């Protein structure tokens, strides 16, 4: 599974780090076959059957390796009753702030673990670490999304306990993460009211594949032209199963609905 979007970037550019252990990071090895050698040796004898071209039916999903590992992750989570949230949004919608607030408020009642995905830096993992919740940072290098193989490597390091909730904060990007199943129980897309209300139809794949839409920063609504109902209508046009929770991490309004949703979450 290639996790990179930069064509010259080796897989080793994807790293796992725990806060406080900056020097001991781990590279994720992927399942790549080596593309660049191996075939000439096989075929140095030119057998006659090779002279005619032959069509081979494959019918394989391009992301089937990602999907297989995602299902393996999902089986692990189900067996341990770990509920897993894949948090997706554009950069700046408040994913990390929502996580910090949620963990601070609920960590005494519920075990939590966090996987932070970003291209660079330990910043988000350090923020979660200071709340006192076990966290691992996946730096994707040039990669624009997390994939199931990175999550698989991260959970081996995190070793989450039974009956916990695992929060996976994906790379801030409304496009690429939509295609990559991580094995999550639910996908939660966050939009903030400082963004355009037509985001759901501009980036439909993400809203189409999500289960819950959190509308954040509603304390700012009086100062903005953001039309909340219009945004929800757009989102429902793309995905009529989508649920909504409106909240403000800053004022605390609406957070209880989100906490109830989390508490009622089942695998």
């Amino acid at each position: 599974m290639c996790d990179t979007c930069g064509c010259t970037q080796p897989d080793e550019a994807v790293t796992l780090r725990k806060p406080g252990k900056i020097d001991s990071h781990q590279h994720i090895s992927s399942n790549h076959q080596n593309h660049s050698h191996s075939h000439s040796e096989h075929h140095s004898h030119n057998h006659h059957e090779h002279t005619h071209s032959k069509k081979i039916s494959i019918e394989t999903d391009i992301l089937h390796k990602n999907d297989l590992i995602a299902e393996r992750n999902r089986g692990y989570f189900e067996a341990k009753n770990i509920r897993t949230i894949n948090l997706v949004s554009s950069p700046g919608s408040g994913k990390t702030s929502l996580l910090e607030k949620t963990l601070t408020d609920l960590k005494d009642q519920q075990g939590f673990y966090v996987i932070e995905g970003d291209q660079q830096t330990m910043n988000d993992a350090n923020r979660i670490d200071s709340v006192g919740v076990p966290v691992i940072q996946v730096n994707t290098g040039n990669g624009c999304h997390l994939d199931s193989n990175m999550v698989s490597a991260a959970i081996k390091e995190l070793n989450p306990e039974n009956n916990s909730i695992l929060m996976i904060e994906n790379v801030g990007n409304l496009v690429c993460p939509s295609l990559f199943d991580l094995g999550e129980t639910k996908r939660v897309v966050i939009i903030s009211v400082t963004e355009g209300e037509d985001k759901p139809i501009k980036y439909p794949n993400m809203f189409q594949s999500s289960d819950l839409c959190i509308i954040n920063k509603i304390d700012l609504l009086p100062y903005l032209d953001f039309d909340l109902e219009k945004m929800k209508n757009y989102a429902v046009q793309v995905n009529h199963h989508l649920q909504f929770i409106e909240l403000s991490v800053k004022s605390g309004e609406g957070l209880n609905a989100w906490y109830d949703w989390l508490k009622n979450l089942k695998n």
Partner: protein
Amino acid sequence: MHEMAIAQNIIEIAEEYAVKSAALKVNEIELDIGKLAGIELESLLFAIDVIKEGTICNSAKMIINHVEAQFNCTECLSTFNTENYYAKCPVCNSHKVEIIAGREMRVKSIDIN
């Protein structure tokens, strides 16, 4: 930009089957790509060109079958084709529609020597 990851997977799948079939080279790779798969074809083809270099797929020609997006209306049960996720049912105007085709991303076949 996830097209690079998609391209890498395509070439891996093609290589895997080519090696299994003791191929000398891959002449063609045929893909089914749904119109709502979220793939930018131009970026994908560019990425494939970069990745196939030095592999058994080096000279492979790409054949892309575009799969039309098809939806089923859960209210009136009619089936219709459309180009976007936010389309309403043309018969009853409901947006309670489910996609039944158009998200495909599949390697369909390879042609080898």
